[in-house]
């Protein structure tokens, strides 16, 4: 018996009577008669059998106008995208990640690295997808041999002049070139000549350059011009002599210069303080919040063991996009210097002696009972979190005093109307404004990320900016209207030409600096600004352009919690002062016999006045809620352990209250938060901006007159504003080199 016969016997269906019902009669269908129809039926729908793909990194498409949607095909998948998107964006929506070096979604398109080449049907050559607009019906192919060969060729050219120093390169492990050469490169090179070398540039104390590694993607040049707004970097030369540089030797003076480290796809620009300190795979990332200014930029604290090794930004479209200021990025070495690690008591000889917590708290509790309740004063510092401020206020209230405030809020803060101290437009909302009036504020030094938004808006929509305050430099076009409140009054009365600018604007934004809180005529200035807002139609149901730009991370939460002193000059008669990380409060008028307790993490000005020091945790070591200037509450998370004997701020106050016999009713951070819920529930709405409920119209009319004193700069040194940054060596270098006039 032949093999074929055997096989056919095995395969022949058994004629089972039950299966007779399933037998089909042979019929003919009309579509089988015509060859075209049968071909159409036979060709499977190209979409049906392909597994569904998800967009890259959860990319979502927003159609501003549904009529403008066009359909393109990426590797056979049909994708609907709005008109004007590039081929690369269309591929991202289709779930295909195109390799790229020069393309960055927040920068203009350069199209010079050629890594994103894809094949487009009916196009003779591969096209650079980042620079090619997608056209209706375009058939894009990303994994054809042509596209693969194009990438491999580009990668070979890039690696021709790229040094093979990954083992000593700080970018190693997070390098785009490293990753993409593994994925798309060839396994051998054909280059036998000498590699080119480029002289390194000195860009200042923050950015380390190894220009031989540069692949000329020009991301840093575009970042400096477009986002940072400084014309520092540029491209010199042509061909293999092409270099990124400053043309004449000069330092990068932007306050956002650290971001070029993140956007550089290779190791050409790396962090100088982080150089050779750690590898990125050794680091533990903790998602936290920056507290060096009131913006509350989202950061990731990278730590190794008990040390903070670096700080990098986290994406938050509403606050910092994906940038952070240099202060945020490089202040971290201050966390390791000048730390208070033991409770200390000043002896009779004026010298501090380390003691145990038990003794320190006993001394404080004894003294606080010896003074009159109205002589007790508490000041919260710039870096205090909401939990500790709540505990401090509760504790001092239980002791009978109501003189608690947060420094920076001035002697008579207005905590009644939330719209009077937060940014009502919100930081991302500033992009919709077309006229800015900056009153006594220099956003470039006070809140660099807010300044970046204004800069973005000015670049995008040619918004007009008017500024009242001391002369300062802006990185966008700005009209200097005057230096003092007099100009403000002129605008309010309609005598100033800028008033008509506000009047004609569709969505004007007024930004008032928090430096004005310290002025005696603060109420008058605020009512003048409100007069402008009323006449200029700045506050409408659909647009609220009245903003206050705060200076410190603690300010907004302190005002929300009602940290308002009973009297503006309570320090002059105080006998017991509780400084919770407060270093800039003016203690000159304090009576000499006053007892000062300093609770904090750094030995700064406040410590030298103290009688007792209670060491507390810095924001990288504790869980705390901070509210930023736009009213968005966010939380820090502990990245590293506390140093020495230090404790969380609210726990110290809680322990002290028990020793003093007025026990606070909370033992866990959750219990503190439920207490906060009673006072300011918006502080528990994490990561969500809580707009102010009532407008300024509820405010009673002020009778005060504005003084003619010109506005002062609220911050003299951008790099040194709080105890942590003052202790930092890198920040000291920056202020020595970069603030040179």
């Amino acid at each position, binding site marked *: 018996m032949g093999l074929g016969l055997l096989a056919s016997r095995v395969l022949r269906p058994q004629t089972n009577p039950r299966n007779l019902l399933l037998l089909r009669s042979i019929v003919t269908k009309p579509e089988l008669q015509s060859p075209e129809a049968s071909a159409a039926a036979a060709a499977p729908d190209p979409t049906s059998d392909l597994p569904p793909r998800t967009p890259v990194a959860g990319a979502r498409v927003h159609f501003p106008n549904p009529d403008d949607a066009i359909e393109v095909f990426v590797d056979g998948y049909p994708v609907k995208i709005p008109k004007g998107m590039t081929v690369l964006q269309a591929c991202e929506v289709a779930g295909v990640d195109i390799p790229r070096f020069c393309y960055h979604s927040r920068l203009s398109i350069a199209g010079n690295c050629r890594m994103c080449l894809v094949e487009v049907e009916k196009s003779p050559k591969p096209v650079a997808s980042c620079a090619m607009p997608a056209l209706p019906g375009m058939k894009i192919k990303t994994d054809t041999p042509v596209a693969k060969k194009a990438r491999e060729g580009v990668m070979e050219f890039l690696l021709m002049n790229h040094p093979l120093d990954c083992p000593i390169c700080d970018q190693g492990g997070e390098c785009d070139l490293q990753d993409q050469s593994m994925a798309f490169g060839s396994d051998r090179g054909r280059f036998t000549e000498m590699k080119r070398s480029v002289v390194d540039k000195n860009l200042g104390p923050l950015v380390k350059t190894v220009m031989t590694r540069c692949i000329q993607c020009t991301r840093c040049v575009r970042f400096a011009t477009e986002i940072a707004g400084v014309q520092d970097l540029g491209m010199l030369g042509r061909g293999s002599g092409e270099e990124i540089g400053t043309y004449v030797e000069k330092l990068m003076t932007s306050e956002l210069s650290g971001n070029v480290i993140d956007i550089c796809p290779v190791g050409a620009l790396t962090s100088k303080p982080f150089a050779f300190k750690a590898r990125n795979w050794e680091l533990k990332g903790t998602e936290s919040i920056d507290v060096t200014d009131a913006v509350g930029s989202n950061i990731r604290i990278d730590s190794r*063991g*008990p*040390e903070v090794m670096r700080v990098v930004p986290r994406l938050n479209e509403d606050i910092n996009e994906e940038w952070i200021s240099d202060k945020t990025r490089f202040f971290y070495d201050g*966390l*390791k*210097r*000048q*730390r*208070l*690690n*033991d409770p*200390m008591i000043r002896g009779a000889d004026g*010298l*501090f*002696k380390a003691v145990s917590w038990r003794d320190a708290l006993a001394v404080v509790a004894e003294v606080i009972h010896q003074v009159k309740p109205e002589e007790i004063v508490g000041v919260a510092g710039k870096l205090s979190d909401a939990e500790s401020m709540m505990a401090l206020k509760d504790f001092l209230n239980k002791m009978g005093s109501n003189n608690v405030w947060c420094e920076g809020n001035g002697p008579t803060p207005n905590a009644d109307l939330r719209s009077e101290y937060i940014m009502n437009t919100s930081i991302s909302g500033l992009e919709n404004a077309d006229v800015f009036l900056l009153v006594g504020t220099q956003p470039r030094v006070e809140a660099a990320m807010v300044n970046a938004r204004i800069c973005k808006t000015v670049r995008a929509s040619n918004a007009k900016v008017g500024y009242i305050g001391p002369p300062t430099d802006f990185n966008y076009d700005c009209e200097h209207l005057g230096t003092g409140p007099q100009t403000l009054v002129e605008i309010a009365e309609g005598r100033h030409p800028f008033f008509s600018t506000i009047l004609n604007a569709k969505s004007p934004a007024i930004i008032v600096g928090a430096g004005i809180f310290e002025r005696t005529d603060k109420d008058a200035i605020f009512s003048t600004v409100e007069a402008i807002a009323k006449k200029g139609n700045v506050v409408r149901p659909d647009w609220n352009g009245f903003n206050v730009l705060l200076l410190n991370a603690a300010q907004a939460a302190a005002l929300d919690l009602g940290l308002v002193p009973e009297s503006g000059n309570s320090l002059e008669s105080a006998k017991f002062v509780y400084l919770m990380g407060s270093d800039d409060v003016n203690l000159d008028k304090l009576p000499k016999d006053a007892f000062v307790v300093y609770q904090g993490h*750094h*030995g700064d*000005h406040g*410590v*030298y006045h103290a009688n007792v020091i209670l060491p507390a945790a810095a924001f990288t070591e504790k869980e705390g809620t901070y509210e930023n200037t736009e009213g968005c509450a966010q939380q820090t998370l502990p990245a590293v352990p506390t*140093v*020495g004997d230090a404790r969380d701020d609210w726990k110290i106050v809680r322990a002290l209250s028990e020793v003093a016999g007025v026990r606070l009713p909370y033992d866990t951070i959750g219990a503190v938060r439920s207490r906060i819920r009673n006072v300011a529930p918006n502080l528990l709405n994490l990561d969500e901006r809580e707009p102010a409920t009532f407008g300024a119209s509820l405010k009673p009319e002020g009778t005060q007159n504005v003084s003619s004193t010109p506005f002062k700069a609220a911050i003299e040194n951008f790099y040194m504003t709080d105890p942590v940054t003052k202790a930092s060596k890198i920040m000291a270098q920056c202020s020595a080199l970069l603030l040179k006039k």
Partner: protein
Amino acid sequence: MASTVVKGALKAIREKGFGTFLRELREEGYTKCLLDGNLLQTKIHNIGATLVGVDKFGNKYYQRLEDMQYGRHRWVEYAEKGRYNASQVPPEWHGWLHFITDHTGDELLMLKPKRYGAEHKENLSGEGEEYIYHSKGHALNPGQKDWTRYQPWQPAKSE
């Protein structure tokens, strides 16, 4: 064989005197043989074997090729008669002793690098905590607490 031992002993007593003989007997570890079977067996093995070499610690390396089971024909008599263990064999003799190589330790010692060749140390585990290396973070390292990763504020400094 027993007569050879007795003859040798008598010869030694005659040549060196009884006192010296007893002292040498003790130094060579014969007195400990009575309690330590391993040592006794090594001593018995040594009779008729060739002494291949002595290392710098005084360990003696023997070999006997005839009348021996293959694989048992090389052995060491430790210089330390009381607390001997295998880690007392230096690396140059280790290979010879374990049949890794036929080169003796004296031959291999000539290949030892002069500049960075570290001296052999025996393993002192179990001999007491003070002999054992502890990293600087280890609880038993006496100097472990005198360093911090942060710099504390110094109270003596005044403004």
